[in-house]
């Protein structure tokens, strides 16, 4: 469990105070995969660095596993850091050390004896599937392989938390997917809490249980990923979701419809259970209405299916209202698309 309590951070530049983080209250449940998304400069990298105190807050507390990190002595802080793994956008591997030496480094720093280091190294090389590269140097590896070495190094000392700072931003989509799968596996098999900072919505969509959206040093929205995807509140959140999941009718189609005098378009959203039920078919059978389906799509967020459909409902006003009520009762979320 990670908790940010009234966190603020200011930088002073040329006598001016610039807020980097502004009154942040957030808690990250143990065992979750928590995503922090925002544009560059939103403060998300600063926020994740507060967890292992690579950055100090100007105000507020960071509580990690019931310990107030800001109150620890330098020595205790180092001890806590050994229980928090971290991976980076540019991997930060030692260029002068081999894969094996890089992975063993955290254990070497702790003075773990050679036999134990070797045993752990074998486990980790096996886990990241890079046994054949143990004696290679980082500059002989591909980006994905480097990040896997980074992950193995971060896991060497059995951490409880893994911080990922834009860990897939320098990788191509295919490699990103394999790294994300590996992170998911770590979370599921070892119960490690994973905090992911990213600017890519598909990273959130693929593996995060929960997400916080940041803008200008503030958390503007946070909650379960499925909820944020189905009910984005803030314009920035909507823009992010739009990148992976079309939320609005294309402008041209909308104009065309209005030209034809069609002004009531409903957006139906099917979430989880309702996505698997034949609600539409039932409605058409039970009520004297017709559907004109304009656009529909579907996405899967971390195992939950979200479907949506833009429709024109043809029928008398009363009956349409009844049909809408019926669908609402069956967990279909309905809104009028023209208002958006």
């Amino acid at each position, binding site marked *: 469990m990670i908790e940010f309590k009234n966190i603020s951070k200011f930088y002073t530049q040329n006598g001016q105070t610039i807020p980097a983080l502004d009154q942040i209250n957030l808690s990250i449940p143990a065992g979750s995969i928590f995503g922090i998304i925002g544009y560059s400069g939103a403060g998300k990298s600063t926020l994740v660095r507060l967890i292992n105190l690579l950055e100090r807050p100007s105000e507020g507390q960071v509580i990690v596993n019931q310990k107030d990190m800001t109150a620890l002595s330098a020595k205790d802080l180092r001890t806590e850091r050994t229980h928090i793994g*971290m991976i980076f956008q540019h991997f930060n591997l*030692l260029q002068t050390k081999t894969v094996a030496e890089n992975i063993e480094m955290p254990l070497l720093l702790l003075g773990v004896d050679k036999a134990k280091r070797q045993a752990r190294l074998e486990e980790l090389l096996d886990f990241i599937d890079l046994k054949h590269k143990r004696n290679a140097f980082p500059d002989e590896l591909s980006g994905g392989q480097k990040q896997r070495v980074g992950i193995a190094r971060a896991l060497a000392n059995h951490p409880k938390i893994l911080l990922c700072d834009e860990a897939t931003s320098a990788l191509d989509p295919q490699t990103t997917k394999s790294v994300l799968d590996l992170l998911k596996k770590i979370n599921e098999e070892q119960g490690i809490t994973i905090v992911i900072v990213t600017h890519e919505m598909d990273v959130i969509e693929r593996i995060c249980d929960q997400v916080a959206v940041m803008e200008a040093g503030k958390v503007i929205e946070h909650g379960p990923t499925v909820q944020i995807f189905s009910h984005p509140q803030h314009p920035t959140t909507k823009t992010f979701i739009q990148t992976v999941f079309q939320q609005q009718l294309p402008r041209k189609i909308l104009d065309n419809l209005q030209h034809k005098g069609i002004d009531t378009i409903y957006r139906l959203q099917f979430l989880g259970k309702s996505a698997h039920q034949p609600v539409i078919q039932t409605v058409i059978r039970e009520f004297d209405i017709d559907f004109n389906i304009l656009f529909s799509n579907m996405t899967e967020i971390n195992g939950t299916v979200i479907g949506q459909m833009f429709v024109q409902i043809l029928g008398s006003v009363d009956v349409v209202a009844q049909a809408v009520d019926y669908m609402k009762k069956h967990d279909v979320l309905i809104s009028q698309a023209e208002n958006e």
Partner: protein
Amino acid sequence: MKEFIVHWLTVITQPFWTSPLGMDQFVDAMQETIQMVLLSFLFGGIWGLIQGVALVVTRDKGILPNKAIYHGLNPIINALRSLPFFILAIAVIPLTKWIVGSSIGTWAAIVPLTIFIGPYMGRLIETSLLEVNDGIIESAQAMGATPWQIVFKFILPEARSSLILNMTTATISLIGATAMAGAVGAGGIGDLAYSYGYQRFDSSVMLLTVIVLLILVQLVQSLGNWLSKLR
């Protein structure tokens, strides 16, 4: 070994050698030069390492920021670095006398040579260490490394290649300074070049000195390049 070198130098220099200087004296002088270079490299290197590391860790964005040390050390280093070696060698004579007991000879030259090369090496080491990616240091801190471990297990090994090249540059400067030390009583081939080449117009000694220095500098540079590529 010495006889072997004397023999071969005599053979090689035979076509142009017109000097009364014995070849064994030349070899002695070379030995003195190499001794001065090696010893002042050793002492200067220790000085430089301490200075370089101290400046890198205590700077504003370093791992142990300390304004007093950083801003206190900087002007002293600049002051020492602003003196040309020839002037420095004369200025520190009282100190040399106090440490070595004499102001003449190879050991006496090592004092000004160290004071000359130490701050220079320190600056070069500082530059090399600053080239290490901040991300490496950040990852070290995230692992819970102590400042000592960050310096010795992360920064220094990662800077190795650049450090070796910079130390090669320093060694070549040192060879240059050693020759000048000859003019203020240190011995070595600088002394020969001065007393034979300059004061007696003995061109054969001059020629041999030039050739030996060219080869020496080439060897040092090649060795440095080779070492910097090893890993």
